[in-house]
């Protein structure tokens, strides 16, 4: 009997929200779960490695990762082992061309007027795909692909939101919704018109660990990697936090006992 009014209220609410559904409002993010959730959650190392591959082979064509250095892939302090070994990081860095410092003659361009480059070293940051904002916009139909260094922390909904954007892009367009020319339908994006073409396809990448590269798998992996990029010290933070919490509980307990003892005769 107690549940009846609640159920009625629920029906009413459901009715009003269905009535109020507005196609220009984004849908709430998908309910996905992550290895790094909760007070003991850590980044799944295999997912980070696969996610790095997805970023490198797909996202980095348009999106920069300006705040992350190659050596960051080598671990984030106490309780946070590296994603790759030092040798792997050297190899990864060397695979990138970095704008070189001026040569002996003080030149920054070669005979053909092209900027001088050199292979990356672990201390370098990931190079951006475009030289500047105008170049990025010119190559993306006027839209600016955001830097991904902090994307998971910079969006309401965090990892779930980014996952929903990446997997929701290119969803079937509902009847009555008009997609703006040159844009794509993404029900999770504010306004539901997104400039980014659907970024992931099945087998966009080939995983060396044999994991089937479905769109969901690729998205889950790359969002894990981007969550790490946003908060590379999370594991160290939780690791140290455990000790600090234990210390504070102990200190509070001892202070409580002292308090009881000191006040025993005062009443």
């Amino acid at each position, binding site marked *: 009997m107690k549940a009846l009014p609640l159920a009625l209220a629920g029906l009413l609410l459901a009715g009003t929200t269905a009535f109020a559904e507005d196609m220009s409002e984004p849908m709430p993010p998908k309910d996905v779960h992550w290895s790094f959730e909760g007070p003991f959650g850590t980044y799944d190392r295999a997912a980070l490695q696969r996610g790095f591959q997805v970023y490198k082979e797909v996202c980095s064509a348009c999106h920069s990762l300006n705040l992350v250095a190659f050596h960051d892939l080598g671990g984030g302090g106490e309780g946070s082992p590296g994603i790759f070994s030092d040798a792997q990081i050297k190899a990864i860095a060397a695979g990138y061309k970095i704008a070189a410092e001026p040569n002996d003659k003080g030149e920054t361009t070669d005979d053909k007027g092209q900027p001088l480059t050199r292979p990356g070293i672990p201390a370098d940051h990931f190079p951006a795909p475009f030289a500047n904002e105008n170049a990025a916009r010119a190559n993306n139909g006027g839209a600016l692909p955001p830097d991904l260094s902090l994307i998971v922390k910079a969006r309401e909904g965090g990892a779930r939101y980014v996952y929903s954007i990446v997997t929701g892009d290119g969803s079937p367009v509902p009847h009555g919704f008009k997609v703006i020319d040159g844009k794509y339908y993404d029900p999770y994006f504010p306004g539901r018109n997104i400039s980014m073409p659907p970024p992931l396809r099945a087998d966009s990448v080939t995983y060396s660990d044999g994991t089937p590269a479905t769109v969901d798998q690729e998205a889950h992996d790359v969002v894990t990697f981007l969550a790490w990029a946003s908060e590379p010290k999370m594991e160290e933070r939780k690791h140290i936090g455990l000790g600090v919490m234990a210390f504070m509980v102990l200190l509070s307990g001892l202070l409580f006992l002292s308090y009881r003892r000191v006040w025993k005769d*005062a009443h």
Partner: protein
Amino acid sequence: MSGPSTYVPKSGFSRWMDSRLPLARFAHDTMLTFPTPRNLNIWYAFGAILTVMLGIQIVTGVVLAMHYVANANLAFDSVEGIMRDINYGWLIRYMHANGASFFFIAVYIHMFRGLYYGSYKAPREVLWILGVILYLLMVATAFFGYVLPWGQMSFWGATVITNFFSALDQIVPHMGSSIATWLWGGYAVGDPTLNRFFSLHYLLPFVIAGVVGLHIWALHVPGNNNPLGIDVKGPQDTVPFHPYYTVKDGFYVALFLLVYVGFVFYAPNFFGNPDNYTPANPVVTPPDIVPEWYLLPFYAMLRSVPQKLLGVLVMAGSLVTLVFVPWLDTSKVRSSRFRPLMKQFFWLFVVDCVILGYCGSQGADASLEMMHGMQLPLVWIARLGTAFYFAFFWLIMPLLGLIETPKPLPASIAQPVLSPAE
């Protein structure tokens, strides 16, 4: 109240020092033997908690300033450098950012406690007013600090707040915008603004520390109020501050810090706005510009008035009102424990502040969904809330003192504490 000093210098050096600069005597009388009412409850621990939080903010802030770069082109990346490259930089920054929120949690509890127990009433009016000044200094410091990471909310928050001054154009043409230009050091929020805000953000905490000194001095002259709101009648009503309150406050400080470090380590961005992890961009306005949670009630009051100048005046008035509280309360009884009507209105006032905070957190044209698809615009709730805020201080407080019949007061603090009362 502190009475004659009981300090006895023990060594030759302390006798020599005592007749030149009696620092030890001062510490002994104010921190050790200071007679303190024996019935102070948990809500009286927030003064100590606030002192600790001020210390944490200053220490972490000084360290952050060693690595932070106050330059519009470099500020955002320098904060991220602290988060990523500086050893334990993430810890210092999260302690500082969450420390601000917990500082405000503590100050609000401290203020509500003062309101509930009538701690502003004679002879503690100056103590209360110093507290109001401290609160205003905290708000200013927090505002300047929030601008420093130079994220989207930093930039646009600074733009919105400094633009309040341009409302003065409606009194004297160009006066307000001239003030705004002067504050910015240019024609918009920019690099000069960031630099002066950093300078002020570093200066004000030390001003706060100074006023805290006055606040504690003004506390030590009449002595603590207490939950019964009656005066201390003699030594049987008090205990020495040490060890009784050092250990009791110490316990509550530890409990408070336990919750604080819980947020620092496990939900460090809970109080933050995601938009502030996007670098400031003067050409892209975020869809909703919201201040930090501790300013939301005032933001709601500002927006509830359709006219800009009046809105700014209402918001300023809500703060200035606090200065007059000692004279607006006409009751002869301090503590709401013995004021049945005041007790109810006090809790209504607390709820009102929470509702105003909620209204401030929502978009400007948000509304509550009622049954049958009816919409109740939140701005009307904010207007009611604003009206109640002012009515509480300017109508209810003066009237209640005249019409309310307080419950009988206990004879002394010792009596209800010592006898297993009722």
